């Protein structure tokens, strides 16, 4: 008879929030001399290789966790010395003057990071710490993914690591039990807790980020420079924008984040990023450079109003993206993800010391998070995202007009003229309302609807995107981009479920009639979804070996007919360096 696999604590997902938790808990444990065991389960082959992020981040939590980080090879790409928020026209760029910008968009002093490297560094640091503390056992499980949460009544008692059942139909020999399981995933797994306990009054809303890292020609150095942009190439009313971060060694991050609550059923984020690169300003930067890596991931954008009712349920805690602490006002989330782990560690430490694992004790976690900078800043920016959702004129009407002024005359003149040539009362009202909401004035509770419910199948894009001359080698097709995500899958991989193939056939027929691709086909960031023809019927097919596990397809599927599960056997992309 095999022994039961048991730990005091399981961390699901080896990301910044779980590693922050583990580090702080270790630091507290080395002072209080408590004994405990912990397992960290991560689906990627190496810690960090499924992590993709911008990333410009405030290092406030890193400073707390590692006071000596500067002298211990902390992987940093640079400190932001200058940042801009710019509106891109089709040809020109306009840097919005600093006095018009919310403080959250001023990034000077923040660190430019490659988050995959930071996570890998945190893993090595933790290994070091663990080897010095004989009271604590930490087992690392990269290359293993959690497939199921084990419940006993209303309590989480552990997780199941292997999928399905064994030859004899028994439960597989990979149930791992723990007093507390912490979820720092992007929702691949923790959604079962959210659903079982009905924790979200407002659904989470998502955006998808696509990112490339480029090696520039040696004479080009943008280290420390940060741009966030709106406008070109998003002229379909989608909320989102681009970002360019200068890294050391003549490298450049180029990315876009596009919200999935778009009316447009065919966003095609990877191709929008290619359009973005066709802008003359960016063309000039990447001329003679070469692409090193590509990756994509979804971001929880709901913020304050999408936070779950409870942050912990009996036997489980939610951290980072599982909780949804991304701050859209500051376009950042890493520091808040880490802080959630930091706060969770304090509550857990107290639980271990007092041997109190009651639900009441864990209520403190939410309280602590909401009293930390997470709660305060998320509360301030609670209407930031909603302001753009409630008023489609901002993105459909005013933004394209500002873009025209950027290209053709003077944007300042445009700010003055737009209200005059449209409806001055409405325009001024819209501007005041936007400012009012972005500054956090209270309008009470708001309601989000799920992203796919915003899709308008017969959506017509009024404004055509005009692209300029560009270097043909600087843009990549979607299948080519997959090459740069370095995906690798095991034989027999099947990590996306399609619930009902007839539903897909109907959806495809509907979109065919409109002359459009289905959202899964068009919005996939990695050429996974395709249409196959079998006995004359157009059916949904998937090239799962391309998948970069961003989960966009599941979010945009108008029929809620897809489910992306974590892959097993360490399969997936290799995002090291993104």
């Amino acid at each position: 008879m095999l022994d039961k696999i048991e730990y005091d604590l399981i961390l699901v997902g080896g990301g910044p929030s779980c590693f922050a938790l583990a580090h702080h808990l270790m630091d507290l444990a080395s002072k209080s001399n408590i004994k405990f065991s912990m397992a960290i389960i991560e689906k990627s082959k190496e810690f960090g290789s499924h992590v993709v992020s911008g990333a410009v981040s405030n290092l406030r939590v890193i400073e707390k966790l590692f006071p000596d980080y500067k002298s211990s090879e902390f992987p940093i790409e640079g400190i932001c010395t200058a940042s801009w928020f710019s509106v891109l026209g089709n040809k020109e760029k306009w840097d919005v003057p600093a006095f018009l910008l919310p403080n959250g968009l001023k990034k000077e002093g923040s660190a430019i990071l490659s988050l995959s490297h930071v996570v890998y560094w945190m893993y090595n640091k933790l290994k070091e710490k663990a080897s010095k503390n004989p009271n604590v056992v930490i087992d690392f499980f990269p290359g293993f993914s959690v497939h199921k949460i084990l419940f006993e009544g209303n309590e989480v008692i552990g997780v199941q690591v292997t999928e399905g059942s064994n030859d004899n139909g028994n439960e597989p020999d990979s149930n791992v039990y723990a007093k507390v399981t912490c979820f720092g995933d992007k929702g691949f797994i923790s959604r079962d807790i959210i659903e079982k306990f009905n924790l979200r009054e407002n659904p989470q809303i998502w955006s998808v980020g696509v990112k490339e890292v480029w090696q520039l020609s040696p004479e080009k150095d943008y280290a420390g420079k940060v741009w966030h942009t709106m406008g070109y190439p998003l002229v379909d009313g989608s909320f989102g924008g681009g970002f360019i971060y200068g890294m050391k060694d003549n490298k450049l991050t180029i990315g876009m984040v596009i919200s999935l609550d778009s009316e447009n059923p065919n966003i095609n984020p990877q191709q929008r990023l290619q359009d973005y690169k066709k802008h003359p300003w960016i063309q000039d930067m990447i001329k003679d450079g070469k692409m090193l890596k590509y990756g994509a991931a979804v971001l929880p954008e709901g913020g304050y109003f999408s936070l779950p009712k409870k942050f912990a349920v009996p036997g489980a805690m939610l951290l980072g993206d599982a909780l949804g602490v991304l701050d859209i006002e500051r376009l950042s989330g890493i520091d808040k993800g880490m802080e959630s782990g930091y706060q969770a560690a304090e509550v857990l430490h107290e639980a271990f010391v007092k041997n109190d694992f009651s639900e009441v004790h864990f209520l403190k976690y939410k309280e602590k998070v909401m009293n930390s900078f997470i709660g305060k800043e998320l509360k301030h920016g609670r209407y930031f995202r909603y302001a753009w959702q409630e008023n489609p004129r901002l993105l459909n009407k005013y933004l394209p007009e500002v873009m025209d002024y950027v290209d053709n005359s003077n944007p300042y003149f445009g700010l003055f003229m737009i209200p005059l040539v449209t409806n001055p009362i409405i325009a001024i009202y819209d501007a005041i309302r936007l400012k009012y909401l972005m500054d956090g004035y209270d309008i009470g509770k708001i309601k989000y609807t799920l992203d796919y419910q915003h899709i308008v199948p017969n959506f017509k894009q009024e404004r055509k995107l005009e692209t300029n001359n560009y270097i043909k080698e600087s843009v990549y097709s979607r299948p080519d981009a997959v090459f740069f995500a370095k995906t690798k899958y095991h034989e027999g991989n099947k990590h996306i479920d399609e619930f009902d193939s007839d539903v897909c056939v109907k959806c495809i027929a509907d979109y065919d009639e409109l002359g459009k691709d289905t959202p899964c086909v068009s919005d996939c960031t990695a050429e996974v979804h395709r249409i196959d023809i079998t006995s004359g019927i157009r059916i949904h097919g998937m090239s799962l070996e391309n998948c970069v596990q961003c989960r966009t397809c599941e979010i945009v599927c108008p029929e809620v007919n897809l489910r992306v599960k974590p892959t097993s056997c360490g399969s997936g992309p290799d995002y090291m360096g993104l």
Partner: protein
Amino acid sequence: MTQSSLKDIFVLIKQVPDQSAKAGINPDGTIDRAKAKRMLNPFDRYALQAALHTKKHYGGKVTAITMGPPAALEIILEALEHGVDCGYILSDKRLAASDTLATAYALHKVIKYIGHFDLIFCGLQTTDGDTAQVGPQIAERLSLPQTTYCEDFRIEENKVIAKRVVEGGYEWVKMEIPALITVANSYHHLEYKSFRGARMVQHLLRNEEEKNKYIKTITLDTIGAEPAKCGLRGSPTIVARTDKVSEIGGSCKIHQGASQEQLVSEIIQSTNIKEFLKL
């Protein structure tokens, strides 16, 4: 379920230079194993799977045995992650530059030293030597019945019924236990490592004492082997010369950013496909 039950299953594995990395070559033409990146011999993955299958269906304890420098610990740990129960590493400087005769001599001594076994599994061959001789030689030295190129097998009434790949077909061989099998690469792929195995390995790495219980490092003196029959001295094979045939790899050009027709024509122009088409 088990018509026959087994007690001890041995699997012989070897660490080889990683094929994806460039191997270091010594001035004398032998492989510099210290410089090369290392991996578990890919053919041994099938042997490992066969041993683990046997354990699953007929019971028993799987012991992985390897010979090599101390770094060979890595593949024993890898085997443990996959579900092997314990391991032996025969590591001795006097074994350096052994050919198949000397290797088989040393390994058969290890097997005799460990003691009881029902089945021994070997990979078909290694990717560094490519001889496929060590397995059969060990069987001869131990006077065991053997099946090479085995693709499938079952155990009935204390006999192994093995399916052997031969030119143009298969051969079914019935052997008395104990026996030796070299496993063909058409056998099942090695399953992914197990959670329990990965946990075990981390436990052993934390605890030296426990590690020494499960993984034993032995030398020629432990197994009572004659040094004269091992290493360069015991190897009649002489590597006369090593020739570099060609460099593997090279430059890769990605054709992109044009219509499919144009890309295909670019590829045709840049390769010598035209020459083939003429034929």
